[in-house]
């Protein structure tokens, strides 16, 4: 597997870093080379939080990158903040419910994708699993980890909560599945 670079960005509290960590752990558990690094500057204290993930079969070089294969912006202001990570090879993903200024969208992208993640979370599942839908979407877009490995990583991370409330397990796995499907559908559609 060639190097895949992913930038996940959102607001503090959206669970961006937790999701990045779970994805990275899943990739590591599949014996892949993996690096995950959060941005942790002062902007993190009230700014956009970004997670940089890289997965490969080969040893990985620098921990950060200029251009990503997949950028996922989980808030309106994260769109403008991450546009510069996109080039002609990038899948740029944001929530289709956002009111986004055209100028904030990247000038270059392989494809700009709007996913109804927030709406789906709110209407079909629960707002708290929004980030898990996004995790599913990352897998759907990149195949960086096997779906079962992702479920296992989720179990490792949240198992203690699932034990207390088994419905949560169901809810999270469903969110993961929906996110994956949503992303796969979006890749099939032509244009942006």
């Amino acid at each position, binding site marked *: 597997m060639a190097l895949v670079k992913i930038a996940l960005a959102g607001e503090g509290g959206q669970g961006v870093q937790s999701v990045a960590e779970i994805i990275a*752990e899943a990739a590591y558990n599949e014996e892949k080379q993996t*690096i995950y*690094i959060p941005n942790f500057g002062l902007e993190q204290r009230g700014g956009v939080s970004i997670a940089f993930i890289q997965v490969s079969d080969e040893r990985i070089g*620098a921990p950060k990158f200029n251009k990503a294969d997949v950028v996922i912006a989980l808030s309106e202001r994260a769109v403008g903040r991450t546009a510069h990570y996109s080039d002609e090879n990038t899948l740029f993903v944001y929530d289709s419910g956002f009111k986004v200024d055209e100028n904030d969208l990247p000038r270059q992208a392989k494809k700009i994708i709007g996913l109804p993640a927030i709406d789906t979370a709110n209407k079909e599942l629960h707002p708290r699993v929004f980030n898990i839908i996004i995790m599913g979407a990352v897998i759907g877009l990149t195949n960086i980890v096997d779906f079962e490995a992702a479920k296992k990583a989720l179990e490792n991370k949240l198992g203690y909560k699932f034990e207390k409330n088994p419905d949560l397990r169901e809810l999270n796995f469903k969110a993961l599945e929906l996110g994956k499907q949503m992303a796969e559908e979006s890749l099939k559609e032509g244009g942006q």
Partner: protein
Amino acid sequence: MQQVITESKKAFMTGNETAAWAALASGADVMFGYPITPQNEIMHYWTRLAPQYGRGFLQTEDEISAGFTVCGAVQSGKKAFTATAGPGNVLMQEPFGMAEGMRLPLLAIIQQRGGPSSGTVIYSQQEVALTTFGGNGEGWRIVYSTATHQEIYDYVIKGFNTAWKYRFPTFILGDGYQAKMREPLEMYDPETRGIKMVDTYPLIGLDGSITNAEREPQHLCNIYSLEEELYDVVLKNTAEYESISPEIVEYEERQCEDAEIIILSHGVVARAADDAVKALRAQGIKAGYFRPITLRPYPEKQLRAAIARSGAKKLLIAESAYGQFYRLTRQEIYGETIPMETLFMPGVGIIDYDIISKVKSIL
């Protein structure tokens, strides 16, 4: 002391967590520290782990105190360490100077952040000058600049041994990226890899009476009455530092034999340099890779030899600082006539693309 890691095991964790585990596996007795980003989690993990293994921790009132308490602990024979960054590293130069002067075997882990002053809490390679030659002394320090989590683990273990074997303060020079990123590594018990941990011993308060001439007195001085006394001590310690340097120097060299350009980097930037050399070679550009692992002592002879052997036309120095590593290198290889090009990106990361572009612009 309780064995921490019975069987080698793979792990996926941050560099800070790695450093804490490595200190535990090294048999460190105690950490003294004061919080500062990006090294905080070394303290956090240590405070979580240490009580389980009967080790100690004290958070002092500031970095000056943290450094001096380490100086005190090692004199009592405890394997002690600290960790800091940025302005904390500045404050610790006073105790680090004492450790040089009194030949105290302390270990400090430095996770470089942006500077000057509070700079950023994120990343840089701007603490090279400070860590190698900070303080009001002659730089009797051993500084390992790591590039991977495996190296953080390996060199923390090695660093304790270096400190206690040679009795010079020893530094593990990382950075905010290494501190905060997660990547795989293998953790192990040093003894199972044939690494004998150097025994620690008290430097003062020894058995036997001096007045009855049962033993020589211990002279651990950081101040002298006479100029001539200090002069003799400085000459003696300098000579000792220079004599042990060949045993300590470490470096990596790849594909320099026929290189037209040698890319010189250290620490985490060396990962990008390694990728850049591979990419350039694939495009038919003869690039070589040279990386000092020890910045003090510097692999000066080895770098001179690599330049001579290759007949390279240029040296490119890449660093996340504005010339600290460049100036260090220049003084070490004084007299070499190879043109030195530079890629200075102070306080920001360098990726292979940056190096490749630079090489193409100067060849």
